[in-house]
């Protein structure tokens, strides 16, 4: 077992070390451009191990000693969630790795790219399989640093293709365009902001229970012990990590500018896996806390908060995406929207039990494959058109038939049009929200339906503006076979999932089937289809272009991130800088020179003239007498 674990994590890391070293040499060896193959081979080994774990490993957990004296160990858990999620991660990472061989082949920074790509994969697998929260945090921090490294991959900021936003555009005082190095900084600062409270929550759980294994802690007793307020603080701190990592409101901005990274990175980290780690962790947490059994007021508030923040983020992301004109930013906003739905659906488990978690998890899987496909197509289009905005008319569809077909299938499958893959999962989600009517009225369901309709609209818009009704684009067609292969395989996984669900081969996913035949779900499906068709024919509405600008500026949320918070921070830094200057002035100039002056003054008295001394003595005596007489003594 320990060999397997070692192989799972060390293979990708060690296989990427040669390229990292070769690329760092002063004279790059000729074979350096072939070394990425080795990195991808490392990813392949991880994939094989994760498949082995899925099919062959039956033990629930496996422990490796780490800090045994503190009851903190590496505990690997192999349950329903982690087995599927592990394969999903390793498979998508491997496939995108293959795609990256072609996509990144002329890049100037391959060592950095592959090192962080593989570190990311290992970290993600660590997060997926870990039961111990401190061990999970190692993976979690690995995700953060890899995300930062890959977003800022093109650190020279010299390629307009790597920016987000229209270059040189300003709204009031704020630049509405972002360079890769700035994108990296926004990502790491947001993530840090969430990770530290989460870290506190983990330490607090350890302090209170002496245990860090999610599946072993007696959560109900813990919540009872610390009371509602304590629960609220603890879990809110804990969820700051998932919220920032999964880009929920108001922490969504970093994900939009994360699109400054290479498209492979956007596909793997910023849609399929890393950002989903937040929702995954929340699912895992709910899986073992079993909030449907726990009676804690604090916990209930938390789940209500997650439900509505998830739904609102979903709606916000979907609406913003309808206004976006950049290929990747549109997809990023839609990712945020999907993550919101996952959160909301998982939170519904408070009232509905485990079924809501299955729905959320299967939505995660479907979304991962579909969104990764769309990103990979977008990357190919960016290569071909040398443009990151949505452009392309029917000529693109003709010349890139494969990409066109793949996009059609992926968008249809993801938007929830019956009878394609996401329809069944979305139907189950509709039912989940429908069941919440007792608690919250029709609000959750309404938000979900609105999100679904907007979601279908922007997916159709993406298809239409890139392949059918967009502006004419100049194409640079060459190569692209590996890329085409990669996204074809990726999209075919959606068909596999469809078969799994419709054929009821997977017992839990099979349960979604009956939800699809409920009239309500079908009506939502029809509405989604209508919205999809409409957007396909009318991808842009000229009369609404000002609304579109408002949306593509993300409703001016960047002001919070780039204007208000930095202003406050710099204001404090400035005050403190003045304090430092004052300290330096007083301690190193004013006080020493005051002493100097004093000493000169005292020495001035010692002139050696008797006359002067007598005057001083007489003066002192008179002064003393004067004081005495004033005091009336």
């Amino acid at each position, binding site marked *: 077992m320990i060999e397997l674990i070692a192989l799972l994590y060390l293979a990708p890391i060690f296989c990427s070390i040669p390229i990292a070293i070769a690329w*760092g040499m*002063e004279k790059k060896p000729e074979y350096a451009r072939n070394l990425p193959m080795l990195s991808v081979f490392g990813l392949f080994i991880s994939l094989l191990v994760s498949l082995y774990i899925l099919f062959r490993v039956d033990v629930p957990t496996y422990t*490796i*000693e*780490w*800090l*045994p*004296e*503190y009851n903190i160990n590496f505990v690997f858990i192999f349950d329903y969630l982690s087995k599927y999620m592990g394969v999903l991660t390793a498979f998508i990472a491997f496939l995108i790795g293959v795609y990256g061989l072609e996509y990144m082949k002329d890049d100037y920074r391959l060592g950095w790219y592959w090192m962080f790509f593989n570190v990311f994969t290992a970290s993600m697998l660590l997060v997926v399989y870990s039961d111990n929260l*401190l061990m999970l*945090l*190692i993976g979690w*921090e*690995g995700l*953060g*640093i890899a995300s*930062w490294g890959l977003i*800022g991959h093109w*650190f*020279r*900021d*010299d390629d307009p293709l790597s920016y987000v936003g229209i270059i040189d555009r300003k709204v009031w005082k704020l630049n509405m365009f972002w*360079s890769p*190095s*700035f994108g*990296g*900084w926004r990502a*790491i*600062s947001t993530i*840090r*902001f969430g990770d*530290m*409270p989460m*870290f*506190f929550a*983990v*330490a*607090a759980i*350890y*302090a*209170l229970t002496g245990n860090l294994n999610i599946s072993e802690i007696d959560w109900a007793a813990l919540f009872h012990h*610390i009371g509602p*307020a*304590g629960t609220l*603080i*603890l879990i809110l*701190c804990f969820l700051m990590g998932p919220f920032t990592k999964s880009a929920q409101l108001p922490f969504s901005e970093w994900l939009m500018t994360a699109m400054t990274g290479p498209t492979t990175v956007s596909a793997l980290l910023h849609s399929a896996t890393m950002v989903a780690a937040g929702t995954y962790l929340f699912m895992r947490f709910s899986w073992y806390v079993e909030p449907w059994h726990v009676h804690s007021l604090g916990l209930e508030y938390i789940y209500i908060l997650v439900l509505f923040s998830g739904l609102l983020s979903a709606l916000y992301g979907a609406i913003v995406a309808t206004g976006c004109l950049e290929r990747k930013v549109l997809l990023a906003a839609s990712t945020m929207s999907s993550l919101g739905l996952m959160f909301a659906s998982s939170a519904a488990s408070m009232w509905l039990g485990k079924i809501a978690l299955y729905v959320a998890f299967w939505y995660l899987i479907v979304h991962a494959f579909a969104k990764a496909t769309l990103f990979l197509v977008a990357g190919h289009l960016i290569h071909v058109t040398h443009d990151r905005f949505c452009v392309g008319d029917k000529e693109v569809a003709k010349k890139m038939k494969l990409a066109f077909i793949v996009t059609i299938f992926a968008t249809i499958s993801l938007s929830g049009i019956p009878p394609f893959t996401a329809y069944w999962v979305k139907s189950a989600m509709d039912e989940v929200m429908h069941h919440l009517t007792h608690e919250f009225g029709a609000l959750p369901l309404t938000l979900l339906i609105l999100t679904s309709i907007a979601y279908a609209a922007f997916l159709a818009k993406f298809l239409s503006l890139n392949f059918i009704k967009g502006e004419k684009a100049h194409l640079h067609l060459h190569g692209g076979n590996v890329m085409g292969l990669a996204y074809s395989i990726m999209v075919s996984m959606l068909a596999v999932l469809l078969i799994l669900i419709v054929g009821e081969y997977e017992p839990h996913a099979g349960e979604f089937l009956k939800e699809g035949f409920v009239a309500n779900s079908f009506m939502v499906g029809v509405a989604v289809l209508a919205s999809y068709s409409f957007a396909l024919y009318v991808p842009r509405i000229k009369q609404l272009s000002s609304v579109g600008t408002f949306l593509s500026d993300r409703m001016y949320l960047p002001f919070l991130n780039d204007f208000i918070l930095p202003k406050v*921070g*710099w204001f*404090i*830094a*400035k005050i*403190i*800088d003045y*304090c*430092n200057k004052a*300290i*330096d002035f007083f*301690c*190193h100039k004013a006080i020493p020179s005051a002493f100097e002056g004093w000493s000169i003054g005292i020495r001035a008295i010692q002139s050696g003239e008797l006359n002067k001394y007598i005057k001083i003595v007489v003066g002192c005596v008179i002064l003393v007498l004067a004081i005495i007489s004033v005091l009336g003594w």
Partner: protein
Amino acid sequence: MIELVILLLIPLVVTFVAPFFNSRNATYLSFVSFMVPFFGILYYLMAGTSFEIPITKVSAPIGEFYLLADPIANAFGLTVCIVSAMVSIYSLPYMKHRFEEMEYEVESEFKKYIFLYNLYAVSMLWLVYCGNLILLYIFLELSLLASFALIYLYGYGNRQWVAVLYFVWTHIAGVLALIGFLIIAYENSTLALKNIAAISYTAWLLIFLGMLVKLPGLGPHIWLPWAHAEAPTPVSALLSPLTVGLAGFILLRIYLTDPWFIDMYRTPILIYALISSIYAGFSVFKQKDYKKLLAYSTVSQMGYCLIAICLGSYGAIALVIQYISHAFGKSILFMTAGAIIAVYHGLRDVEKMGGLHEYIPTISNAALLGFMTLGGILTIGMFGEFFILKGIVDIYEFNIWVIVAVVFVFILSGFYGFYTLKIIFYGTPKGFKTPKIDRMLDVPLYVIGLLSIAFIFPPLATGLLNALKVILGVLP
């Protein structure tokens, strides 16, 4: 047991022998003389041994002289050894550059330098093993004298003034501590740590204030940005990572001997530490000089140590780990600053830098490792933060203000780290030349960086933290 004495004697002997060799061999000799004890101490630490080696008995009130080799001393000693060894390698190309810049004759000047350097490092190594406070004070003074001479002779800017500033302030610290020690001596009629029964209010206060100057806390910190910025870089790379943190070590020793003072004044000290850390953290953003920037970051990180000591037994563990992680991280970072100075002829202004990753990728990646260590990302600093946070819950439970403040301190150190990386190494390259970098200027940085990562995984993490568990038995 006696092997430890031999291990500690090796660098001491080499201190006096090394000047007789040429610069290259002297450097290698110093390197080896610190690496040998490093492995020895690592062995003791992993084995979790704890023992005393008696040296001599002196009459009251001084008491017994002995070496105290418990896991705490081993953890600190290990750090001193590895950082000193790596910096000694790094010194060779750097000081050659510095001597040429100062128009000194390289070989003869290097003899002076290597003697002072080794004396400085070895006195810190011996300091952490001292079981007697007066012995400890002697090594403390020795390290101050040596570092003073190094700044005075080879520093930058107005170096004589800076050296005197450093000397005066650290002596204020030293004298306050000495008076405290003497009061302890007259009250307990011994200065051997194991025999001290109680430490009175005045003694505790004086030692605490002295260490506050040395650590330094906010207020008495005024000397540090100057001294650390203007010292020659290899000396900065010992001053900031090793020396100032030793104040934390002394506080910890006193705390473990008689904890009442900290236990009683826990909250005011914690508030002061938090303000100090946040203040210094914000100061970092406005610094123009890379080395001064790092110096302010030191003040902020030493605030961590002060926070940690207020947080009970887990806080004490956090203090030890924080010392190690700060030493690793900050030594890497000072060495990156020095490398930039060496290859770009004194370039220190961060506003003139930008996009440097293009020209010196190895240095840039090392700086990433350094800031990761400071921020506790994937490195040993993670445990420091973890135990500090656990300590908060142990002592203050869910006091929202303490939680918010400490979490904010941690966020801030991540922020300034990545912000600094961004403005120095990333962004549009500014048209520098790609220099040829001496491998001695970057390999040592990676050794420390990788060690810092290795320390979160077994077996190193397991050994270190199991050994540090002795602290839990002593404190409530």
